[in-house]
């Protein structure tokens, strides 16, 4: 959307320009190709290794060439092992991750949409101070929060519950910041005033008139919250120790620990397959919603 808006006037203008000296060129120079290619290998090689390794038994991991598939392939056995080990707890972790990330995405999106709306569209006492304070908390390290959260949760008996992971993930200060930008850019104040004169209630203005106009922002914030919660490791590590409550990140890390300790059958190739499963939803989200992904970054980057 934004890209076509920028590109077209550019080409139109270069056509009129008296000296169109090498406008955005058609292709890369050999040096550029080389650099791109190198960085591409660096980015993709570990992922390629994942694809080849998931076809191997743990024995083949040591006996075969690292960057090619195993034959005979052990892929089916790995899939079976992954989903049956410890009574199929991996599927439970997968569901937990979807639950944690899904609730966090929807919850923090709504909170950020409402809060951002208040900051963007209303004048109130202490607005700027409050906003600065909220933004500053982006810099508070997660450990500084997780330890006291653990103790507070312990006092109210929420340790080892789904709530212990979900509740803290509902706050996304950066999401609030993004939503404020989206409200400022996407919802004209004139439109709001006009709706008020027509007698629309404040709730209706926000819900029916405003929200559809900042849909891009909503998707962006939901996406970032989803990724943040999906990747979260420290908080679950601190607040849950029952393996039925683990998200994927924590579960795989524990498998890695037991797999590496003596007297256990190492299951590294199964862990690698599990790692791929844990990445897939994010890759799909990225490829299908890439537009929003970049939209959030853009507004975050250009409007300091």
């Amino acid at each position, binding site marked *: 959307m934004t890209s076509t808006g920028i590109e077209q006037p550019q080409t139109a203008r270069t056509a009129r320009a008296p000296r169109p000296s090498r406008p955005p060129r058609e292709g890369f120079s050999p040096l550029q190709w080389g650099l791109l290619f190198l960085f591409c290998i660096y980015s993709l090689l570990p992922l390629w290794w994942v694809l080849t390794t998931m076809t191997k038994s743990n024995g083949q991991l040591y006996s075969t060439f690292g960057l090619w598939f195993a034959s005979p392939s052990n892929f089916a056995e790995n899939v079976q092992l992954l989903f049956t080990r410890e009574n199929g707890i991996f599927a439970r972790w997968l569901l937990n991750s979807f639950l944690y990330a899904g609730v966090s995405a929807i919850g923090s999106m709504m909170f950020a949409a409402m809060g951002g709306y208040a900051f963007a569209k209303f004048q109130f006492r202490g607005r700027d101070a409050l906003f600065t304070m909220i933004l500053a908390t982006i810099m508070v390290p997660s450990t*500084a929060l997780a330890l006291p959260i653990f103790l507070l949760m312990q006092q109210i008996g929420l340790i080892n519950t789904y709530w212990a992971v979900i509740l803290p993930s509902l706050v996304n200060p950066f999401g609030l910041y993004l939503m404020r930008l989206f409200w400022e850019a996407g919802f004209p104040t004139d439109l709001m005033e006009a709706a008020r004169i027509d007698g629309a209630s*404040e709730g209706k203005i926000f819900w029916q008139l405003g929200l559809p106009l900042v849909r891009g922002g909503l998707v962006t914030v939901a996406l970032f919250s989803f990724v943040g919660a999906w990747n979260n490791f420290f908080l679950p590590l601190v607040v849950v120790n029952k393996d039925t409550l683990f998200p994927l990140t924590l579960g795989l890390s524990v498998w890695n620990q037991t797999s590496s300790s003596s007297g256990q059958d190492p299951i590294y190739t199964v862990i690698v397959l599990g790692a791929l499963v844990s990445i897939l939803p994010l890759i799909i989200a990225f490829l299908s919603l890439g537009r929003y992904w970049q939209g959030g970054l853009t507004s975050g980057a250009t409007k300091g």
Partner: protein
Amino acid sequence: MRYRTTPWFFLTPFLLAFTAFFIAPVGYAIYLSLFIKKRVGFGPAQNVFGGLENYVRAFQDTAFLQSLGNILLFLAIQVPLMILVATAMALILDSVKKGFAQKFFRTAFYLPYTVPGVIAGLLWGYLYSKNLSPLNQITGLNTDFLSSSILLFSIGNIVTWTWTGYNMITLYAALQNIPGDIYEAARIDGASNWNVTRYVKLPLLRPALTLTGIFSVIGTMQIFSEPFVLRPLGYVPDNITPNTYLYLAVARDGNFGYGAALAIIMAVLTLILSSFFLRNVRGETA
């Protein structure tokens, strides 16, 4: 004014959660950090008020200071290198018209960001392992990437791998937002491609670079997952980063007061380092 209460209605849900899971924990951490663990007589250790004793202890704790040193090394080497590569790639991709190759590289560079830090740590941990590493297989060498002399660089590589593409996309998006007529003006003045990059693109990229810098600093101060998951695979010292040291100290001794003090110190250091960058952003937009 009719709308005096309306904003507060919209703010309430966020502020409630924010207070419960940001303000209260930070306040509680400050409170906790004032208590020290002390054994009284033969009884079990008790938490007694110790004033700033935990903070004094932290600055005399060589293990903690070492972990801070590691992080400073990260800030001095890994962060600039990562931002340099990200900027170079963004400029290269921005220098040509959009097409298949360009889109392919953008997607390829971004993919590592979709890998959670823990998972990236696991995968690279296996790639680093002496017997498995395809690098060793290809070169016939027997490098131990997890040996203490290069461990920090191996962790730096994991972080670089995960985040360079993300930063590149941020910078690329900012470049795409530069209006075309600015280039036009520069070209009519006869500016070469290099001069356009040097005098037009890079200055306009500054806010995005600053933002990238801030987020990299914040992220670096918090590095935890990558070294943590490498621990079972090789010898990783407890104090490789401040966060691993803090977590393991608390998990081992249950000394929450000291852990809280370390966390507060890290928060303050992050604030100081980031405000250095933030001032830059303000200067740009104001």
